[in-house]
């Protein structure tokens, strides 16, 4: 599949394509997101001492000090490692498999929890399959990862309540969440130019389809709705990522988790060098088809602006090099084919 964006329509500083009217390039072929970023005063760095202060407010007062959302990827595995080893906490590792997680990712988490000696909840479910199928079959522009993220976050809040963990730890990196603006609010700013259209389509799908399907009747329509719901819980968990507070980049912590907990890269994932689930191939395919970019383009653009990766590396990692055979293999689990994506 060749969904590569033409180089001349990509911002010369980051990897965002020109998608008018929300994202546009100026005469120097720099996107409005980069221009806005350059004009903003630099953010004060988040300090590890502040992170520790938050951790210590809750340390030892609950059954678990925190719940770590584990995907088997490098960032969440490092987050689990830091919680146990660097901050000496009693974390509960939590992983779900909606039927599309890879064996490699699951094994990464299993090895890590065994090595670190932490309790582990593995939640396997078919709950989301019908929704994924609906998105594909209905030709919705909803980004498959979005309702899945909302569901996963909802599940994490439930698990934190059930297992009495006051803090939810995510493996979000500096590119994956607005650091200071959305502290403890988990996730991205859906009103930002780069996310607004995608979020609108996801919201529209959820509005139209969840009412029709009994099992999804209570499914939160947006991340904001989910957060409002979580605030009403008796047990209020906050969400944080250690990566916002630490100066170490993947270069440093991948080495640590490889050595300490036997973490390994997966063979095939999108973007390269990630550990995303197999449904993510379908999600990314649809995102490119409908919007011209994926949320990984947004995240990597932020990482470029933060000085974490180079633009050329991001362009390389974002190349879509997966085949119809792979897509068909994933789609067969929800009784769909590549033709359903292309019709």
């Amino acid at each position: 599949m060749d969904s590569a964006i033409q180089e001349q329509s990509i911002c010369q500083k980051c990897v965002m394509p020109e998608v008018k009217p929300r994202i546009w390039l100026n005469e120097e072929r720099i996107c409005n997101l980069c221009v806005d970023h350059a004009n903003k005063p630099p953010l004060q760095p988040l300090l590890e001492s502040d992170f520790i202060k938050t951790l210590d407010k809750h340390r030892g007062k609950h059954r678990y000090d925190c719940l770590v959302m584990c995907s088997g990827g490098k960032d969440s595995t490092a987050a689990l490692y830091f919680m146990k080893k660097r901050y000496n906490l009693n974390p509960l590792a939590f992983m779900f498999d909606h039927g599309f997680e890879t064996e490699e990712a699951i094994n990464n988490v299993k090895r890590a929890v065994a090595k670190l000696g932490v309790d582990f909840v593995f939640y396997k479910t078919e709950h989301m399959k019908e929704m994924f199928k609906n998105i594909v079959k209905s030709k919705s522009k909803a980004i498959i990862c979005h309702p899945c993220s909302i569901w996963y976050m909802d599940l994490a809040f439930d698990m934190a309540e059930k297992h009495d963990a006051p803090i939810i730890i995510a493996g979000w990196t500096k590119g994956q969440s607005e650091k200071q603006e959305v502290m403890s609010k988990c996730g991205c700013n859906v009103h930002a130019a780069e996310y607004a259209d995608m979020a609108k389509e996801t919201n529209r799908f959820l509005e139209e389809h969840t009412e029709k399907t009994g099992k999804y009747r209570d499914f939160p329509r947006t991340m904001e709705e989910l957060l409002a719901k979580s605030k009403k819980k008796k047990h209020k968990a906050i969400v944080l990522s250690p990566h916002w507070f630490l100066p170490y980049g993947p270069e440093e912590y991948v080495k640590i988790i490889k050595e300490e907990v036997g973490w390994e890269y997966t063979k095939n994932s999108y973007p390269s060098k990630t550990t995303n689930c197999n449904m993510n191939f379908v999600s990314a395919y649809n995102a490119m088809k409908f919007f011209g970019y994926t949320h990984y383009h947004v995240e990597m653009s932020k990482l470029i602006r933060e000085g974490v990766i180079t633009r050329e590396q991001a362009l390389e990692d974002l190349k879509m090099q997966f085949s119809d055979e792979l897509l068909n293999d994933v789609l067969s689990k929800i009784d769909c084919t590549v033709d359903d994506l292309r019709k």
Partner: protein
Amino acid sequence: MYILGISCFYHDASACLIKDGVVVAAAQEERFNRDKYSPVFPIQSINYCLQHEGITSYDLDHVTFYEKMYLKFERTIVSHIEGFPFTYKNFLDTMPLWLKDRLVVPLYIKDELTFNKKIWFVKHHLSHAASSYFLSPFNQAAILTVDGVGEYASATYGFAHENKIEIKKEISYPHSLGLLYSIVTAYLGFRVFSGEGKVMALAEFGTPCYIKEFNELIDVREDGSFRINLDYFSFNRGEKMHNKKFIKLLGEERPEDAPIAQRHKDIAASLQKVTEDVVLKMARHAYRETKSPNLCLAGGVFLNVTANSRILNETPFKNVFIQPAAGDAGSAIGSALYLYHSILNNEKRTTMINSALGPHYNLSQIEIILKNKRLKYTKTSTSEELTKKVAQFLADGKVVAWFQGRMEFGPRALGNRSILADPRSPTMKDWLNLTIKHREDFRPFGASILRERVSEFFEFDHDSPYMLYVAHFQKKYQGAFPAITHINGTSRIQTVRREENHRYYELISEFSKLTDVPMLLNTSLNDTEPIVCTPLSAIDLFLKTKIDYLAIEDFIVEK
């Protein structure tokens, strides 16, 4: 054993981390928050120190603070009561600072660091003394500390032997040489903390013809002790520390933007002469009392390179040691080492080899920025290739920003965050002052010279690794290096040994091979802001000024 040392709430806030008696990290807060001489709680420096060592506050065994806040508060209150009602406004202005920050230091530290073990408070001048002695190579030494004011003391002398430091005598506030220097600095239209060095430079353009007037202001005795004539000052009584009588004695003060007249230069020269005379007398007295061949100096006054040089040359001491952060920043280290050696009685000592105690950045971090900014750069494959190329640029008259290894601790750039140039150039000083440093044209630049060749060029044959001495050129070189020569024919010098800074030593050596001049002009890598800390700051400075090349680790960046 890990000890975190902290200094803050006045100026030059800093933090350091000591591991088993060795300083493993230290930095000033200004380098991170970009506020020059920043006084705030040095939380970014602390985070840096801990992360550099890969530890968190849970791993700390002790935390030290560089002065006794309650004692200082007592002095402040007494001073305000004595001056009431004239001190009332100042009292209202300063009390919130005390109540918000200074008096709650223990709570501050416990809260910010979630640290629940004991916090140790070491007297201000004892912290100064320890910062010098415990980093020196000496097993016993006389110690002299002089600054503005600590709790009560403004100057002390003492004696250190093995692990113990004994302060023998002290001079108390308001009698303070450091304060006098700062008051005259403000009177001459310069800013306190940043202006003292300018006054020192300006002094060389004047003649000390106001000595009679200064004798009215300060009564100096043969042992170096002194009393300030309080009739001429208004401590805590208003925005200015000098009064009408002071103006009657020395004339109208100079507004900040007014031209500098000969009178101002002469007053600066007189102040400098008095300062030198006082510290010389103090040092001679310390020698008479201790008979030690070794002297350790600390306190902000010993950033005065001219005074230091006279002590080195004109007293009986054979060896003099000053650590690079002689002011309050260095006291963070002093308080921590005082706890480690004198209180906890650990004997193992480590001599300071260089001041590179700050952050460093790896090649991939730097290359990401260079690539994303689309800069024209080359990566050298060996250190030799880098130093040869940069030496050639310098010999060709180019200005090079030199960003290498760990950032220096203290006010001087010593070959890790430096701007370098050819000292022979007759136009370089003005070019740098005007287009890159944006500072007064009378201010001279320092030089870095290979230690083994220093006596060939200067009337000087000592170690000066932290650029804290000046020296006259040898007769045959007078006038040969205009870019680094002050009006009085001296230059502020840093001697460089290979073991202190390998790459910098190699660079100067390569320059010497091309020019037969084993020295470079060396000034700090900044304009009017604090010295740069990160690669991004260095690149931004490089792009906005007329620096020709940036040598950042193995990369050479050009415009």
